[in-house]
């Protein structure tokens, strides 16, 4: 008899989702899917609001990545005003965006995934969490807390508060940097850099222990998409939008944000609220691509800062198609962000007081693209002559990865799920493949809440044969 296993909800991720695994008569995995079970509707309820309100409104999509939404939104507003923002404002936005990436990566790696990586995929679930980590390796847990706090602190210093700062505005930023703030941020960086480097040095050599996971955690050829600087180094805010092929060959490169519409199509699948984007020229599903740290490091020639560049040497040794390496990529990016924030704070123009441009509505459309921790984030707005929103389309980083997560679930289930006996470690690996992407589902469907998890075993007729729940 064929059966379906349902993991609902998936734990230690941000948002609500479930996984279903279909077994055939022999108990082998036939199919598996990742379902996002929440819906939010930001695109609809912003209609009629003044566009200048959008950065603050859009930041409310997420408490983890408000800054990412602020960035993409403010960029879309800049385009509606048809202004090139001041160089200093662009640098200040970059610093806040990197602080955001740093804190979110620290959350993903240390809080959500390190319990699997350090304690093992088969460790008892009651230990596989940040508290278990704190008991087993207090140093590492502390490093994670410290790194996250540093990123949050930088956001607070710049924007006045850690979550939903209103400092990033249409036309630049609300206030310039002060000497005190600059000194305060610079003082935070050395310790953070040491912790990030230590985490990297510790994780990189341990990769051989995860050979089976590396082989099966969404390890298949796809395209990759992300922003990249003119020098082919990491750039999270103002780079060119690049798409590369499965063999890392360049397919597309554009500096015009409005081109996104030509590049990305969105497929709607019956089993998920989350749309499945694909690279338009190749169609669906051939045009499935991945975004985020894995994609970004696959696109660039090197990160672009000394220590991150050194760490990047390890990157070429790993199987870069495996989504397991999102973890390694995250650690390299944390190092990069800390170094780059330091570099920008030493730029001669960073203290310039002109950080805001003012203009009325000069264009009916605006597209803002930024790199959120989880990948490319696109905000596209339409406004009327008075600047009131008529249209919003958001393509969220997690959304881009939806088709790859879906396929990844099938691959890992085929490798680890055997027969109809449900075991914790087996289920945890199915969840862990999702965790590798660090999805933020509340963002991607524009919903709220936490994500516990449940697996159901269904007969071919749809009857529940067994259920494992946790969270």
């Amino acid at each position, binding site marked *: 008899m064929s059966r379906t296993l349902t993991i609902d909800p998936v734990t230690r991720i941000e948002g609500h989702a479930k996984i279903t695994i279909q077994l055939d008569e022999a108990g082998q995995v036939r199919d598996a899917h990742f379902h996002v079970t929440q819906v939010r509707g930001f695109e609809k309820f912003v209609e009629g*609001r003044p566009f200048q309100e959008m*950065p*603050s*409104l859009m930041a409310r999509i997420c408490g983890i990545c408000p800054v990412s939404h602020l960035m993409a939104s403010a960029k879309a507003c800049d385009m509606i005003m048809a202004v090139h923002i001041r160089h200093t404002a662009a640098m200040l936005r970059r610093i806040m965006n990197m602080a955001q990436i740093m804190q979110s990566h620290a959350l993903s790696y240390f809080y959500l995934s390190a319990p699997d990586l350090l304690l093992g995929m088969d460790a008892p679930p009651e230990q596989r969490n940040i508290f278990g980590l704190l008991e087993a390796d207090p140093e590492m847990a502390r490093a994670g807390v410290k790194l996250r706090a540093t990123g949050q602190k930088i956001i607070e210093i710049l924007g006045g508060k850690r979550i939903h700062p209103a400092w990033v505005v249409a036309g630049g930023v609300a206030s310039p940097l002060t000497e005190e703030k600059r000194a305060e941020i610079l003082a935070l960086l050395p310790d953070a850099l040491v912790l990030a480097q230590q985490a990297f040095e510790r994780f990189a050599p341990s990769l051989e222990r995860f050979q089976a996971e590396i082989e099966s955690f969404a390890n298949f050829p796809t395209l990759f998409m992300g922003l990249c600087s003119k020098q082919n180094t990491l750039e999270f805010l103002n780079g060119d939008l690049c798409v590369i092929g499965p063999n890392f060959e360049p397919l597309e490169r554009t500096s015009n944000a409005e081109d996104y519409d030509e590049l990305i199509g969105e497929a709607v699948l019956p089993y998920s609220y989350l749309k499945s984007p694909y690279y338009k020229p190749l169609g669906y599903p051939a045009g499935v691509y991945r975004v985020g740290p894995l994609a970004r490091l696959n696109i660039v020639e090197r990160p672009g800062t000394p220590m991150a560049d050194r760490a990047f040497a390890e990157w070429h040794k790993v199987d870069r198609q495996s989504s397991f390496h999102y973890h390694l990529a995250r650690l390299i990016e944390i190092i990069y962000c800390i170094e780059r924030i330091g570099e920008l704070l030493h730029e001669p123009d960073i203290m310039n007081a002109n950080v805001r441009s003012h203009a009325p509505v000069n264009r009916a459309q605006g597209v803002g693209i930024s790199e959120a921790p989880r990948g490319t984030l696109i905000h596209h707005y339409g406004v009327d002559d*008075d600047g*009131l929103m008529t249209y919003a389309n958001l393509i969220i980083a997690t959304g881009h990865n939806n088709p790859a997560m879906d396929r990844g679930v099938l691959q890992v289930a085929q490798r680890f799920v055997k027969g109809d006996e449900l075991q914790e470690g087996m289920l945890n690996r199915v969840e862990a493949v999702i965790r590798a992407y660090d999805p933020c589902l509340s963002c991607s469907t524009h919903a709220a809440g936490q994500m516990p998890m449940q697996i159901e075993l269904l007969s071919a007729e749809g009857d529940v044969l067994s259920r494992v729940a946790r969270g």
Partner: protein
Amino acid sequence: MNSNVVTLSINGKEVSGRDDETILELALENGIQIPRLCYLEGLSIVGACRLCMVEVLGAKGLIAACATRITEGMVVQTDSERLAEYRRSILEMLFAEGFHVCSVCVANGHCELQTQAAHAGIDHIDLPYLYPRRKVDASHRLFGLDANRCILCTRCVRVCSEIEGARTWSVSGRGIEAHIISDFATPWGESTTCTSCGKCVQVCPTGALFMKGASTAELEKRTDFLSWITAMREQR
């Protein structure tokens, strides 16, 4: 104009004032704060918001402090559990009737409605929200009107008529349908009477009238110009 000095008690304190003064004016002179939203020094009095209601010994009901003159021997209480409850109810109704999202409002942190709510200790609203779908008028080159945040205090109507003399603003509709209009309900940007002086924006107690381009929590309003203008006019 002749006026007599009268003596009365406010919150148990003996105070004196001219008999052409209101309870609110005398209270403020004596450092006693009474919650208010529609009252603004320099504008005429409408007694619309009812937040300044006080208890007067011997009076049948509650009295609006902004619209009641003081009399000899009056015993006034500006603060009591009963008054606090009434004021909370009024504020709750204002929040439930409009669409006030402080977190993304230009006036966040500088809003009189928000400040009054904080003073009244409001941390939630028991009444069901009406979630009205009111339009934003952003047709003016410099300013915008978000009717969702309007509490119908009519300060804009009064300042435009009494101080600027343009009479651009008025109230249309009745009861729950009442709303502010410019000219004959034409878009603000097409108004032939508006002088774009911005006084209405400055006196608006919430983020309903705002400067375009202002971001969240950026709009600090100034009403001190009113007393200067009125003082200068009186001297002339």
